């Protein structure tokens, strides 16, 4: 299973901004809305535990959104 964690919309994401500025310098001019997050891969038997895991540890819900992907 995978959990995708990304900075919440509207919060300054300096990493995304840096990547967005770097790409045109390499000739990739047509780029917008770059955001950089985290990917957590894990195996669990009880998938119902994934959400509390995200809320308590894997993400900080105050500043990050998370998305649980069950089928890899």
């Amino acid at each position, binding site marked *: 299973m995978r959990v995708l964690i990304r900075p919440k919309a509207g*919060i*300054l994401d*300096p*990493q995304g901004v840096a990547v967005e500025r770097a790409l045109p310098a390499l000739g990739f001019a047509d780029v917008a809305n770059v955001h950089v997050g985290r990917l957590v891969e894990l195996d669990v038997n009880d998938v119902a535990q994934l959400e509390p895991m995200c809320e308590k*540890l*894997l993400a*900080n819900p*105050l*500043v990050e959104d998370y998305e649980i992907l069950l089928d890899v």
Partner: protein
Amino acid sequence: MKFAIVQFPGSCDDLDALGAARLVGDAELLWHRERDLKGADAVVVPGGFSYGDYLRAGAIARFSPAMESVAAFAREGGLVLGICNGFQVLCEARLLPGALLVNASRRFTCRQVELEVVNAETPFSRACASGERLSIPAKHSWGRFYAEDRTLRAMRESGQVVLRYAADQNFNGSLRDIAGVRNEAGNVFGLMPHPEHAVEELIGGSADGLKIFESMRLSVEGVLA
């Protein structure tokens, strides 16, 4: 009075915090696996990189046995000071509002900063005057204070902003120049700059940081030295 200084694997400012606390009272280290605060009157969660800052700064430290005791101590009204990584730990533990995000510059920055005392009527700032400036070093990559608008409004209305970066000193992009915040009850305080590194004029160029520790001593003992 007696301070307990929490020590995590990866703490690096624990001994300076211990030294600063000993200038105003007794102090002992508390290893992260211990639960017994041994009668401490106040707790300091120091700076560093607890548990390697894995996942997010402070995210794992918050679940240590020592922090469980510190959280219980805080709920009972005990004084808890979080410095830098300690501030991040207290935010992750929801003992303080908001979160600390990567500096707007994305860079680690180490510099002396000028702070302004916004609220001098807290157990951590009572040795200061309102509006007083403090010169204290800061050194971090993840110090940009963030909270939602409604939280920021509530914080301002209830005097939870204790310290802010003075004009042109907000190097990390913190919202509303916030450098140090207290909880609603007033017994938990966190700041990104390092008061424990500014307690001797000879080596720090400023002893302004001592006022934070002196404020805590005053709050516990109730009298001027």
